[in-house]
């Protein structure tokens, strides 16, 4: 009996292993920055080159989303209406305009609306490299201590928010 059960069992195990492998997304590379303090930077603001965006001051004290986007990014456009909705619900969102021109970035905000409390302007993408960004949009959840708690790759969909980001933000809000 064992003679037949053993290969069958091995086959089933292999099937499960490969099945799980199929559901994983190889494009989602886990970030080593999760659980670490957010990398600090000072960049000019998108709307005003004279005013600095100081991450050490902005990205702490309250739970926030740090959304990396660009006007040339199609998936960002798809994500944008949902960010607007989140902003209306009172979620704090900061933006990093990645490898963009100031003109195009400002036009985007003007035409589609501004869900961001402030947008840092990262024209050469150096700050994004410090954050381990490898494709836009990417969104980081930052807690009150300024620690990165989660990284979302790709546009945030209402389902992502309901299942992952929303509950996490609600939980972090309750923490001191």
């Amino acid at each position, binding site marked *: 009996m064992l003679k037949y059960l053993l290969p069958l069992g091995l086959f089933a195990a292999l099937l499960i292993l490969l099945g799980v492998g199929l559901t994983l997304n*190889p*494009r989602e*590379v*886990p*970030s*080593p*920055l999760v659980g670490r303090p957010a990398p600090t930077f000072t960049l000019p603001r998108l709307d005003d080159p004279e005013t600095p965006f100081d991450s050490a001051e902005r990205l702490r004290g309250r739970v926030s989303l740090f959304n990396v986007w660009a006007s040339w990014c199609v998936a960002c456009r798809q994500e944008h209406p949902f960010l607007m909705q989140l902003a209306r619900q009172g979620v704090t969102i900061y933006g990093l305009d990645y*490898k963009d021109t100031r003109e195009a970035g400002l036009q985007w905000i003007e035409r589609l609306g501004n869900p961001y409390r402030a947008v840092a302007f990262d024209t*050469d*993408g*150096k700050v994004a*490299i*410090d*954050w*381990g960004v*490898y*494709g836009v949009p990417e969104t980081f959840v930052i807690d009150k201590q300024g620690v990165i708690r989660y990284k979302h790759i790709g546009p945030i969909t209402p389902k992502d928010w309901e299942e992952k980001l929303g509950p996490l933000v609600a939980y972090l809000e309750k923490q001191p």
Partner: protein
Amino acid sequence: MKWGIALLALILTLPTSAGIEVRQFPNPELEARYQHLIEQLRCLVCQNQSLADSNADLAEDLRDEVYTMLLAGKRDAEIVDFLVQRYGDFVLYKPPVKKTTWLLWFGPFAALGLGGILLWRIGRKRRPEPPPPLSDAERRRLEKLLQDHGSDDA
């Protein structure tokens, strides 16, 4: 038709590294280190290409970083660390041996060993067992049979 083929041939022979920029190095040793580094680092956008192969924007930026750090006198290990801290072990084509990568490093050998053991056991089971030795009565019968047949044949 002829022109079409000529055009196709031309397109196929165009250099595939069109996006790789030309860089100046103060000495060939530094250039060799640069080349070696970008070949062992993986591009995160097109994941099956190294930084050296990829034309992605990010790969270009990361090559810039590697180049700047090399010129600034950073050691190879420092440059690799810089990228691992930001992008994780994923940027390395050759991930380090640690607890989370044991399965990756030793799994194939374990599977091979397991397969070997299984094969050996199956092989041993299939080998026919030697028959039990004949008893005295059986031996006498055998001799008798052989003798009888022997005379038949003659």
